[in-house]
């Protein structure tokens, strides 16, 4: 459906600019309605985020006594942060590092594999390719959590559970990203260009790195962000694979803290640590998304689900 071929893009964008200029005149009923919808939506999506930012500035007593969506008596964010990184011998810092390592390595690895495979499928023919392409669609449909338990059992046979590899290796699998890259390459990398490079006797790997990669940057950034978010946010996989607290990522670590807090009614483990820890856990990804906006938006639209 969304055949965003590279060729028709500039024309389309020119048209779009016209299209968006005329309805911008305020007062038209459609425009007013659109603004109302967005205003209400903004409130809905922002409330939990506003809450977490405010909650992270409160001490435990303030958290319980002051209004939920407004600041408490003191401004305790610095104190909360200090306490957060000191609790349990600084295990939170460790979880943060673990999360960064797991998701960084997985995203880098998965993106590399997807880029190579997507390009290979889009621009080469080899035996079994047809089969692989139709299987790819099937692979996307396999629910990820159905794989976690058997993978755990397999990895436990070779003593890999409860290591960082048990989280990283399964996260390298991303058929959807391979599919995205394949679509993008077939739409934006002309065959003639590759042939020209081959005429110049460039090696295939060199062509890929120097010619193809720069052309498909948007989809590479998109795929990288997708896999980064998927691993950063993953809970089920590390929950199953890891049993040692110092290997936990943030998601699993914070929930164990939260369990303690709930069970003990907030007497030992304090809720202000949970809220501050949650805020610190979401800030890096939000920054990454804001910074890389222009890339992932175009990358998403290109592959946008045929």
């Amino acid at each position, binding site marked *: 459906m969304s055949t965003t071929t590279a060729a028709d893009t500039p024309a389309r964008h020119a048209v779009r600019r016209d299209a968006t200029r005329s309805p911008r005149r305020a007062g038209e009923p459609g425009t007013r309605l659109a603004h109302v919808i967005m205003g209400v939506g903004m409130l809905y999506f922002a409330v939990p985020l506003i809450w977490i930012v405010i909650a992270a500035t409160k001490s435990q007593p303030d958290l319980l006594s002051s209004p939920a969506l407004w600041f408490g008596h003191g401004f305790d964010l610095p104190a909360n942060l200090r306490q957060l990184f000191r609790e349990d011998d600084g295990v939170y810092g460790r979880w943060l590092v673990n999360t960064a390592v797991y998701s960084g390595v997985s995203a880098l690895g998965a993106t590399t594999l997807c880029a190579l495979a997507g390009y290979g499928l889009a621009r080469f023919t080899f035996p079994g390719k047809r089969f692989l392409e139709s299987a790819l669609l099937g692979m996307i449909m396999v629910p990820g959590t159905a794989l976690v338990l058997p993978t755990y059992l397999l990895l436990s046979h070779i003593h890999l559970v409860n290591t960082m590899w048990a989280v990283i290796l399964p996260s390298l699998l991303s058929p959807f990203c391979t599919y995205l890259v394949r679509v993008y390459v077939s739409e934006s990398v002309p065959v003639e260009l590759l042939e020209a490079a081959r005429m110049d006797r460039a090696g295939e790997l060199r062509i890929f790195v120097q010619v193809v990669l720069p052309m498909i940057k948007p989809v590479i950034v998109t795929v990288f962000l997708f896999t980064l978010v998927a691993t950063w946010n993953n809970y089920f996989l590390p929950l199953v694979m890891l049993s040692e607290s110092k290997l936990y990522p943030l998601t699993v670590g914070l929930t164990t803290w939260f369990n303690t807090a*709930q069970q003990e009614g907030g007497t030992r483990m304090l809720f202000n640590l949970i809220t501050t820890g949650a805020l610190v856990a979401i800030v890096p990804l939000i920054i990454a998304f804001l910074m890389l906006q222009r890339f992932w938006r175009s990358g998403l639209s290109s592959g946008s689900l045929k």
Partner: protein
Amino acid sequence: MSVNVLPGRQAATPTPPAVSPRQSRPGLSFQARQSVSGALFVLPFLVIVVLFLALPLGYALWLSLHSESLALGNKFTGLAQYGHVFKDPEFRAGLWRVIRFGAVQIPIMLGLALVAALALDAINTRFSRVFRLIAFMPYAVPVVIGALMWGFLYSKTFGPFAGVSHVWGGGPLNFFGGHLLLISLGNVVTWAWTGYNMIVLYSALQGLPREMYEAAVVDGASPIQIAWHVKVPAIRQAISLAAIFTVIGTMQFFNEPAILARFAPDIDAGYTPNLYAYSQAFRFGAFNYSAATSFALGLTVFVLSYAYVFVTRRRAARA
């Protein structure tokens, strides 16, 4: 962004090669070499597919066809495990709950995403760009943390919402029990995923050619009529694909109920099929049974969604 690619591309593309590479490199094997290169590009991905998709699936299937007993070890029992799974009242209750949940939550969420995407498509102001960002933000928040935040917001001690019923003189609302529990869960999921689906649908809308609804504009159709009668049908396929991915996600429902279970004692170990499979494996050590459960669930989802894609593609190809 692909716009930027273009000028460079044109500049870099020389006049079409007069000789094809095949002729330029004498010898048998341009075709063969290309085959090998292509296969090598795909190989690393293929290795991961075999190790972490095919092998686990095969192993789960094998486990599900065997039963474990202390005396005999693993013994082949055919489809007996599946018989137990589909007769298991806990599994069935969980499955039915997730289906009911999806039947209500998925249309609401995708409807909201569609409305938001159409609104975004209609105006392009700083306001709309800010909205787009804020709506997408929850996607970057780990589901576990999203569920935690909503758990706090729902709670009587921390949250602002439990007390709204004072307005009409009621007691504090219990978001964690009775009919409200599924709605509370649905809200967490809707909050997290509407923005993502909105961006996907918005991208599809942006890909539509303007000429498509020029005629309708000339005929004096209102923006809302155009949105409903022209734009929505045109992105039908993007909508149905978003629906499939949402269904696949919903059937695996785990994180949100697992977290909210700390607030809501009603969420038991069999609340969703996936929670059930997890507790069978890690609480009771019933790995074969757990494998059969998750394989049965995975297979159901896979077959349904693959069939759906196949049929809709067929229909689209014919149209």
